[in-house]
Every structure is written in structure tokens, then in C-alpha cells.
């Protein structure tokens, strides 16, 4: 077994390589001029990578164009990153908290229609949920004249907050609750549960102090998947609500005036991975705390 530090030493270059390679795809893959067929220009791709690495020292790799203006990555990233970070943290922690408790409730109760609703929402792709939420607000506004929440961010002073947050939380919470409810049901079939019951312990006590500690490891094991869902969701939500986060930073500046900006895409993707790592760590911390609370 390799020590942890050696593992990290392998993983980080691997991830960097992955980001560098995929970020160059828009340059590499294209159609030839005129009626030309599909072409792979790896040379051009590696040219962008070389320019990126060469520009690291001079800071040139941390500039980008927005329209005709030159911006510095480090000056701008803070606000974009904070916006995304706020959504990722809320989605990760609130999503798992809501998911775990409703999941427990679903495992021990009938709640037939509620389960069907959760199942129905779980079947819908994330962008459909966002579009339906927006559509619902517009319909309500048309019928009653009351605009409940902002449907999209049109100006910086008036950002859409509630609806994106709702969309960010619903999806991971739903995933978590179905997982927890399934694992909880499996755990409740174990013999130590009937043993605890035979000892005369209360139902709630058994659930929270016997069953839940055995469900949490599964939740932890599935955390990468959950965070993957959160990050994919972040992209869709920021894009559809036009909220100024890291994904908008990438999408709005990937092509400026028909030119592909390799540097900003790489920097954006790396910020994304840092965001992922931070979010993952925070949710792990939350689960750790939850485990401590229900420790016997």
C-alpha cells in the first residue's frame, strides 16, 4: 500500500493533465476549411498548453479578454468563486441534512404519495427542474400579478437568490433521501436491530443510535457521487439563472470574438476542482459531526 502523500503526488499531476488535455479539445477538434473533413490538430492544442505554462511566470496566463477589455484572473475570481462556493456549500450541507432526515422518515413510515413525489422528481433531469421552477413563477405572476422570486439575474443589483438556492438543494437532497431510505431499510433488517428491540429500547433510540451510525458510512462512501451531482447542478443553475459564478466565468469567456481562450478555461476548471474539494471537505466535516452527535 502506497503512503498517502505518494498517492497525492500521483493524483495531482493526473488531474492537471486531464484538465489541460480536455481544455484544448475545442482547438484540437475542428472541420477543415471549405468542405474539409474532421481534423485533429494536436500541434495547435499543445501550442496553447505551452503558451499557458510559459505565461505562468509572467502572469500572462492569468489574463483574459471580456469583450475588448483585458481582465486579470486574480482580481476577478474572488467574487465568482464566492458565489459558487456559497451555492455548493448550501447544496452539500443542507441537501445532505434534509436528505438524511427525510430518508430516515421514509424508511420507517408508509408515506406512499410523498415517496412517489420524491421518485418523480428524482427521475427528472436537473435542467428540467430548473426550467419548471422558472415557468411556475412566471405562471403564478401571470395569474396573480405577484412575482414570488426573481426568475433570473438580469442586473447585478437584483440577483436571483431563492430560486437557484432551491434548485441547488432539491436535487442533492432528493438523491440523498432515496439512498438513505434504502440503506436504512436494509439496516433495519439486521439481527442487531431485533436484538435491541428485544432489550426493550425505544424505536427512535434504535433508529438514531443503532441504525443511523451504520448508515452513515454508506453515505460517506457515496459522497463523491453526491458532490458530482452538486457540481453538475451548479453549472446548470448558474447558467440558467445567469448568476455570476465560476461556470459563467468559463462559459462567458471561453470564446471571445470567435477566439478560444485556453487560459481562462484551464483556470476556471481548476477553480472548479478546488471548489469541489472544499465542498467535499465541508460535507465530510458535517457528516463527522453528525456521527459524533449520535454516538453511544
Amino acid at each position, binding site marked *: *500500500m*502506497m503512503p498517502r502523500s505518494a*498517492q497525492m503526488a*500521483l*493524483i495531482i499531476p*493526473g*488531474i492537471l493533465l*486531464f*484538465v489541460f488535455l*480536455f*481544455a484544448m*479539445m*475545442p482547438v*484540437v*477538434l*475542428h*472541420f477543415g476549411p471549405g*468542405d*474539409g*473533413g*474532421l481534423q485533429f490538430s494536436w500541434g495547435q492544442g499543445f501550442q496553447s498548453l505551452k503558451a499557458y505554462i510559459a505565461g505562468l511566470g509572467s502572469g500572462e496566463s492569468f489574463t483574459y479578454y471580456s469583450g475588448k477589455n483585458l481582465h486579470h484572473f486574480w482580481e476577478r475570481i474572488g467574487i465568482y468563486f464566492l458565489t459558487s462556493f456559497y451555492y455548493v456549500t448550501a447544496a452539500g450541507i443542507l441537501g445532505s441534512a434534509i436528505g438524511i432526515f427525510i430518508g430516515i422518515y421514509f424508511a*420507517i413510515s408508509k408515506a406512499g404519495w410523498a415517496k412517489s413525489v420524491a*421518485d*418523480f422528481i428524482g*427521475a427528472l*433531469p436537473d435542467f428540467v427542474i430548473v*426550467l419548471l421552477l*422558472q*415557468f411556475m413563477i*412566471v405562471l403564478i405572476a401571470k395569474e396573480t400579478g405577484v412575482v414570488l422570486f426573481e426568475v433570473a439575474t438580469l442586473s447585478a443589483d437584483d440577483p436571483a437568490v431563492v430560486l437557484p438556492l432551491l434548485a441547488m438543494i432539491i436535487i442533492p437532497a432528493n438523491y440523498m433521501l432515496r439512498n438513505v431510505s434504502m440503506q436504512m*431499510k*436494509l439496516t*433495519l*433488517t*439486521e439481527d442487531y*436491530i431485533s436484538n435491541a*428491540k428485544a432489550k426493550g429500547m425505544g*424505536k427512535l433510540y*434504535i*433508529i438514531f443510535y443503532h441504525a443511523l451510525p451504520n448508515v452513515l458510512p454508506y453515505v460517506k462512501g457515496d459522497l*463523491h*457521487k453526491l*458532490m*458530482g451531482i452538486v*457540481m*453538475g447542478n451548479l*453549472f*446548470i443553475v448558474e*447558467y*440558467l439563472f445567469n448568476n455570476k459564478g465560476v461556470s459563467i466565468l468559463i*462559459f462567458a469567456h471561453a*470564446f471571445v470574438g470567435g477566439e*478560444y481562450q485556453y487560459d481562462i*478555461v484551464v483556470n476556471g*476548471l481548476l477553480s*472548479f*476542482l478546488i*471548489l*469541489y*474539494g472544499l465542498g467535499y471537505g465541508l460535507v465530510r466535516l458535517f457528516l463527522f459531526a453528525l456521527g459524533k452527535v449520535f454516538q453511544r
Partner: protein
Amino acid sequence: MNKTLLAGLIVTGMMVVIALFGPLFAPYSLDDQIKIEYIVGEDGEGTVIAPPVAPGADYPLGTDKNGYDLLTKLLYGAKYTIFLAIGIAVARVIIGGLIGLMLGYYGKQGTDKKGNSFWGMLNGIPIFLIVWLIMIGISINPNASPFMMSLLLAIVLLVIGIPSVASTVKEKTAVIREKQFVQASESLGAGGWKIIRSHLLPHLKESFLILMVQEVILILTLFGQLAIFHIFVGGTTMYPDPTEYYSRTNEWGGLIGQNRMNFYVNQWIFYVPLAAYVVLILGFHLVAKGLEKRYGKMFSKFSHL
């Protein structure tokens, strides 16, 4: 057969019929376009007909803002959405399944720890973003035909989806591999291929079926997500000034993507394709649920509480 499975099969069956014969039922052709007209009625009152036309007798689902019939578009586009999704899913499960079986049977146990954290970190970059990066350079106003572009996207989605299928199958295979009947067969001298074919595969065929339906849903989701970012199945036609994106194939995800800003006015243009797409996904979801229910009963235990 349980009710969920039956309902799912009916919905998906209908969708497949639409995909196969849709253009035959189409009330208009794809090129029929309603232009701005001024009609004077018998009472001398003039009315202006201008696209988009709301759903009504002439246009059951209305027209889009350029005056093309939405129902016709949906019927023509269905085959791309449905057959492509099913095709990619089948290919993913066959190729990924074979790789997973091999890895699960021949691979060593418990050595995949360090790979996990690498792939775990990469979860931070969503799949559709990777597909977006690959396709964005070639998908806008492409030289190739819509069919070739669909095929290209299919290959990308196939390759990207194989690892997850393979790892799912590998896990399941590794569990069955430890069962006694497999060990008995091994000690009787059966070779690896024989065990995979006559012990592992029959035990996994239900899982493969469910996996395939779930993959169809994942691929349909990806079609939609990509369409939100203007990557349409079969290529995107972009018009400058004002910049507008149109699907070349009328694939359903594409119709959602190109019309998604219509939730303020002329709302049918927004919700008609969305409804068709949601019904399709729900159909497959019901099939997956139904299959799980059908096979799940065989092994289930009961709660003590």
C-alpha cells in the same frame, strides 16, 4: 408483470412507434411555413395571422416563432432522440459490461483503492462539460451531415460512458465470483470464459437490463443538458445578428434548448417540447422502476421495526 412496468412499457412503446412512423402522421412537412397573412372575413373584418400561431384546430400544438408546426418537428425529431439514446445505451452496456465482467473475474481483489480517489476528484468536472469541450469546436454550423454529426456525438457519449458501466458491472461480478457455485465450477476445471458465460452472465442479465434502461435515461439527460448549452444532436445551425441557435435534426433536447427563453410569452413553444421530453424520460423511468420491483422481490428481506 406489475403496473409500473406495464405503464412504462406502454409509454416507451408508443414513443418507439412515433420514432419509427412519426413523419407519416405529420400534418405538415418540415418546410411548410406560415407567413404573415391578412385575411378579410365575410363580415368585412380583417384579421392578421402571424407566426407564432397558438395551438388550435389548424396547428394542434402550435407553431414556433418562425411559423413551423411544432407537432411536425417533434414527429420528425423523435427518431434521433429515441433511437440514438437506446443505441448508445445498448453499446455502452455491451462494451462496458464485457470489460466489467473481465475486470471483475480476472482482476485482483481490493487493489482499486487509489484509482478511486482519482476518479472521485474528477467527479468535480461534470460529464456534460467534458462533452461540451469536445463538441463545441465542431458542432456549430458543421460541414458534416446531421447523421454523421449524430454518429460523432454517439461515439463521444459511448466512450465517455463506458468506464462507469464497467465499474458497476465489475463490482457486481466480484460479488458473484465469490459464491460457492463459482468456486465449485472452478475446481471442476471450468475455464474463465466458461464461467463468465454460464455462471456470471445468467446471474447478471437482470442487472444488465436495468442498467441499460438507466443508461438510456442518463443519455437523454445529457442530450438535454448539452442542448441548454447549444450543442444539439446532429449539429447546431447558428445565425448571427441576433445570434440564434437552431437544431438541424429537431431532436427533442434541441427543441427545448432553442426554445427555452419562451417561458414569458408564447409559452407553448417552451412547454410543448419539454412535455414530450419529460413523458419520454418518465416512460423509461417507469420501466426501470418496474424491472427493479419485479426482480427485487426475489431477494428482499423484511424490516424488524
